[in-house]
């Protein structure tokens, strides 16, 4: 590559990096210079929304890990049909707009949905509850976990498991002490991705769970609400800032497992 080429390469890279960094820096700058943002940050609303987001995203991630690990394992070990199904699942969050995901959830779990209807008869209703927030996040973000876990299980050589069986280990014992250690980094990376996506979930949550302070208004919904309220941009900035700070802190703390070229690659 010529000197000119490498220089223009660098310029393009720097421009693109700036494109991502500047808006985040803008949030911080606005918070420092705009007095309203500081007072919004001191009011409880932003924190309440953030706490709800952290709790629901963590619950959704725990469910994704609990249910997604066996699914990813089964898919990875089930040959052709499994890999087709896996491909479909893995692409789902990319092709499905979150608002469409919300409608889809309503058709099944809504009050008049195929499952929600019978549940309603039993006195259980999901929509407009915190459980609905978790379900919406699980639906939208769960595939990110499955995607990572599937790749991990595919990369883990099944011959290790074969050796463990010949040594007399049970299937469960083999999975726990041979397979799981091999894929743990992939599972962790998937969980972090899933958590981050769940934390940012807006569209499906609004349509399926509604938006009520304290029970269903997560931080992204609070940003939307603040943007429309008298607090306007100041309120929206303050919640956005909290969200970015928390997400960044967690990502940095976990960067050892999630960085490209990290230990599992």
């Amino acid at each position: 590559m010529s000197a000119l080429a490498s220089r223009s390469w660098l310029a393009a890279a720097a421009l693109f990096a700036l494109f991502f960094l500047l808006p985040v820096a803008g949030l911080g700058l606005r918070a420092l210079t705009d007095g309203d943002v500081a007072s919004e940050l001191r009011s409880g609303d932003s924190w309440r929304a953030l706490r709800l987001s952290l709790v629901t995203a963590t619950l959704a991630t725990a469910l994704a890990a609990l249910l997604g690990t066996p699914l990813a394992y089964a898919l990875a070990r089930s040959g052709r049909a499994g890999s087709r199904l896996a491909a479909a699942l893995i692409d789902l969050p990319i092709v499905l707009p979150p608002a469409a995901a919300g409608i889809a959830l309503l058709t099944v779990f809504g009050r008049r949905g195929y499952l929600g209807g019978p549940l309603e008869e039993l006195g259980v209703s999901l929509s407009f509850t915190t459980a609905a927030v978790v379900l919406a996040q699980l639906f939208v973000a769960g595939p990110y976990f499955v995607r990572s876990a599937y790749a991990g299980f595919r990369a883990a050589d099944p011959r290790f498991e074969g050796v463990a069986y010949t040594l007399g280990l049970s299937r469960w014992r083999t999975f726990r002490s041979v397979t799981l250690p091999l894929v743990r980094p992939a599972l962790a990376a998937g969980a972090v991705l899933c958590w981050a996506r769940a934390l940012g979930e807006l569209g499906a949550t609004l349509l399926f769970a509604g938006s009520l302070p304290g029970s269903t208004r997560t931080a992204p919904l609070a940003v939307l609400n603040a943007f429309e309220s008298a607090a306007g941009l100041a309120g929206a900035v303050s919640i956005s800032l909290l969200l970015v700070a928390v997400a960044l802190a967690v990502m940095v703390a976990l960067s050892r497992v999630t960085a490209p070229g990290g230990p599992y690659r």
Partner: protein
Amino acid sequence: MRVPGGPARRPWRDACWLAALAAAAVLAACGAGRGGEGEQTLRVFAASSLDEVLPGVVELYAAERPGVAVEVVFGGSQLLATQVEEGAPADVLLSADRAQAERLTASGDAGRSLPFAANALALVVPVGSPAASVEALAEPGRRIAAGAPAVPVGALTRAALARLDGDVARGIRANIVTEDPSVRVVLSRVESGEADGAFVYQTDARRGRGPGGGALRALPLPADLPANEYVAVLLAGAGPGAEAFVDFLDSEDARRLLRAAGFLAPVGAAAR
């Protein structure tokens, strides 16, 4: 990709071509934002509760003026006003309340404003629903959708609740399961059957459909409720046709369409 000018593949040339292409695409996209040459495009930001009546009004307006194109963007009044403050290229804002007009005037983003319609609050339920009165909707376990207090319909809802009988108002408040960002979303909660009742506008009560496809019914609310005024706001830097469009909203033709959709005359219109 075929690289013109030589058989040898030079990655940086590819990159330059790509960059040029991207720049051209961005420029073209910016150009597309404004109407074609010689045609005057008027951009109107409108409250989402106008989304059914306004296309007809715009059509009538444009039919009388060849060469004028009107582009309408619907959204929550607050959201649209914030976008205007942040520099969104709009000529006219049709807000569902006075507050936005006052806010934009104070910030220097607006010129003249003109009330052109009004809309009353309605608590709607599907026809045939077991919860067929305001009192029934206040019973524990019912689910009611409302707008967020920041949205005009939500502010009007709070004003109505303040005038209802204490116990009923308390019951209704406790049954509100969502505070939505726009009246369209609030209406959709009853249309999908997720909520038993919803606080929307009279115009929504007319056009909305219950989950089974049946009509909606507006339950009687206190008669002395203030109505929501719709205000047309001429925005700073508006194009030449904007003034005429605002005036047209006050014409008999526009009034007739608005009335037919269930809108009321603006407060003080009788005096004019």
